[in-house]
């Protein structure tokens, strides 16, 4: 079954690169996702692009035989494919010929043996000894150059990741990220599960984006089965997605204030966050909006949203304090600049992309529920911490407006589809989470079980943006830059 918003184009090994390049140029799209899937005798590679103009997704596909698992790398022409190619090599043992970086992203050399590929169907947990090879970080050498290793256990209460700074005096000349510490093998865990039993797991991919992830997954499954989600349920989902955006944005606004030592607005921001959590609790029974999305709709109805007005009144104070403090603005502007060109090359989308002038938001034209609402996109061109802060402020206020409008449109009626079925097929589910587009490409087998589920959290691509944004900044500004992106460790590591 085909879907009107997805176009699949088959290629052969000799024109796969050219096809990808033409899609990339024609639609001005980075590689939004690139992944493999195992067929009977072949592996199939998918390379996904987004067309903002046509509101469609384009996939270039390439079949490669299992006995010769390799394909020509496209990362030389389209850099945003680089991480995905490395991921395919690591998870499937398919070699992207011409991609020189064979370091692993998640299955660290210290603990995982060579030649064991988890996403192959015949995978069994390896008994061999780990490779034991040390991870080769890029070295910066020269007089007065120091290396500063940070993590995976950090000073604060945050996720695990390793940052290797090279500094010449104060300024950072290179930052290398080594992630994968949160790898839990989610994509493998999803295999052979009935979709309805898998929703709960998708919520735990990145807990702070539980609604976005579970909705994107449900969207894919609902598209495959032609399941019609009742309008009331769709609008409830959108309201919860906006609430998720609000509590995360205000947490980051406070986080940016605390990272420059401005504790008073940070305290106010955390009170606002707490208020949204308790509102969430009252609406859904979960402070983090877990357990609400199910295939075909939502698990429970929501009550009234009293309290939103006072949250907005408090937020107005917060905004006033931050944007009128000269010493605060001096720290965030123009710190941590991610230039538009760099962002485009890396495939940075979502919030961080919009702060660098890339006007992609799936809520405009892609997500059906939002089509009727005239949603105003907020973009900035400076790409610094201030731009990312302002995007958050705009979107927080925008989300509140959207929630009010969604509430006005909330019809009475069912909240769960009646024709829930799981049939064979594949589709892409997508949702604009608070960090950016969350994509789930799902293939169901003949029994309606998950054969392959590729999860693409925007963090995966955007982490690299951070390592470019901090160049030339000083290490004490790193926490601020990091917070201004606030990417997900578990979302990127899967």
């Amino acid at each position, binding site marked *: 079954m085909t879907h009107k918003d997805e176009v699949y184009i088959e290629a052969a090994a000799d024109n796969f690169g050219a096809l990808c390049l033409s899609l990339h140029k024609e639609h001005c799209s980075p590689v939004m996702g690139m992944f493999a899937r195992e067929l009977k005798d072949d592996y199939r590679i998918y390379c996904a692009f987004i067309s903002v103009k046509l509101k469609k997704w384009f996939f270039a596909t390439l079949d490669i035989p299992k006995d010769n698992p390799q394909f020509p790398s496209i990362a030389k022409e389209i850099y945003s494919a680089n991480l995905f190619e490395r991921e395919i090599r690591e998870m499937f043992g398919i070699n992207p010929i011409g991609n020189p970086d064979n370091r692993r992203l998640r299955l660290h050399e*210290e*603990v995982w043996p060579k030649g064991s590929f988890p996403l192959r169907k015949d995978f069994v947990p390896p008994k061999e000894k780990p490779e034991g090879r040390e991870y080769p970080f890029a070295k910066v050498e020269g007089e007065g150059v120091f290396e500063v290793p940070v993590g995976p256990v950090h000073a604060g209460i945050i996720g695990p990741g390793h940052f290797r700074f090279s500094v010449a005096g104060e300024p950072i000349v290179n930052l290398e990220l080594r992630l994968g510490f949160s*790898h839990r093998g989610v994509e493998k865990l999803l295999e052979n599960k009935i979709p309805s039993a898998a929703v709960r797991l998708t919520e735990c991919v*990145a807990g702070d984006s539980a609604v976005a992830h579970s909705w994107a997954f449900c969207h894919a499954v609902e598209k495959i089965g032609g399941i019609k989600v009742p309008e009331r349920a769709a609008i409830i989902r959108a309201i919860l997605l906006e609430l998720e955006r609000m509590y995360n944005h205000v947490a980051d606004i406070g986080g940016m204030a605390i990272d420059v030592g401005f504790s008073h607005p940070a305290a106010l921001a*955390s009170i606002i966050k707490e*208020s949204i959590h308790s509102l969430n609790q009252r609406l859904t029974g979960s402070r*983090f909006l877990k357990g609400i999305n199910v295939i075909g709709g939502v698990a429970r109805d929501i009550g009234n949203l009293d309290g939103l007005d006072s949250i907005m009144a408090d937020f107005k*104070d917060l905004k006033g304090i931050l944007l009128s403090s000269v010493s605060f603005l001096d720290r965030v502007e123009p710190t941590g600049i991610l230039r538009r060109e760099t962002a485009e090359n890396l495939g940075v989308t979502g919030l961080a992309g919009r702060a660098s002038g890339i006007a992609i938001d799936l809520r405009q034209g892609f997500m059906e529920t939002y089509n009727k609402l005239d949603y105003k996109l907020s973009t900035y061109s400076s790409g610094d911490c201030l731009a990312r802060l302002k995007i958050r402020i705009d979107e927080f206020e925008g989300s509140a407006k959207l929630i009010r409008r969604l509430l006005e449109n909330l019809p009475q009626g069912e909240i769960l589809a009646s024709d829930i079925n799981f049939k064979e097929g594949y589709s892409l589910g997508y949702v604009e989470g608070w960090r950016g587009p969350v994509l789930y490409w799902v293939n169901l087998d003949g029994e309606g079980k998950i054969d392959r589920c590729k999860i693409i959290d925007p963090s995966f691509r955007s982490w690299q943006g951070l390592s470019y944004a901090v160049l030339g900044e000083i290490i004490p500004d790193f926490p601020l830059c990091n917070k201004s992106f606030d990417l997900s460790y578990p979302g990127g590591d899967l």
Partner: protein
Amino acid sequence: MSTLDKLLLCRLRKGIVTVPVEIQKVEQMGAELKKAINARFRRSFNIREVDTGSCGICEAEIIAANNPVYDVARFGVNFVASPRHADALLVTGPVGKNMLLALQKTYDAMPEPKLVITLGDCALDGGIFKESYYVEGGVSKILPVTLHIPGCPPTPLEIIEALLGLLKQ
């Protein structure tokens, strides 16, 4: 009137209706917690947190326990940057293979006597990720765990309650 009351009252005057939690309960449990910490830890119980691959919201709730509404620091519970300063190690996540060494090293860096507390369902036995090829499944296989705080994730109030239960023993 405590600082928290003043802060909240100030917000109340401005029209906040969503008073987040039962403040009374926090205050009452906090007072008890403070008494227990004063008696056993000379006024400060220091915790070092380690994430071994959680989905991130256990951390969010621990951070929330430090926000002005709960503010566990005023009862003597401090989250410290170095394991050298810690009385207890608070572990979240199902223990991914990549975090095994870091977890062990953090524990080894702590001075004796030391406690290990696990937080969240994943940390107990791997939780929803139990079957995965890449998780060890549960902190207690690796370190001696004194207390487990269940939940997915436990709320700040539940965290305070569990700590109180432990320190009152």
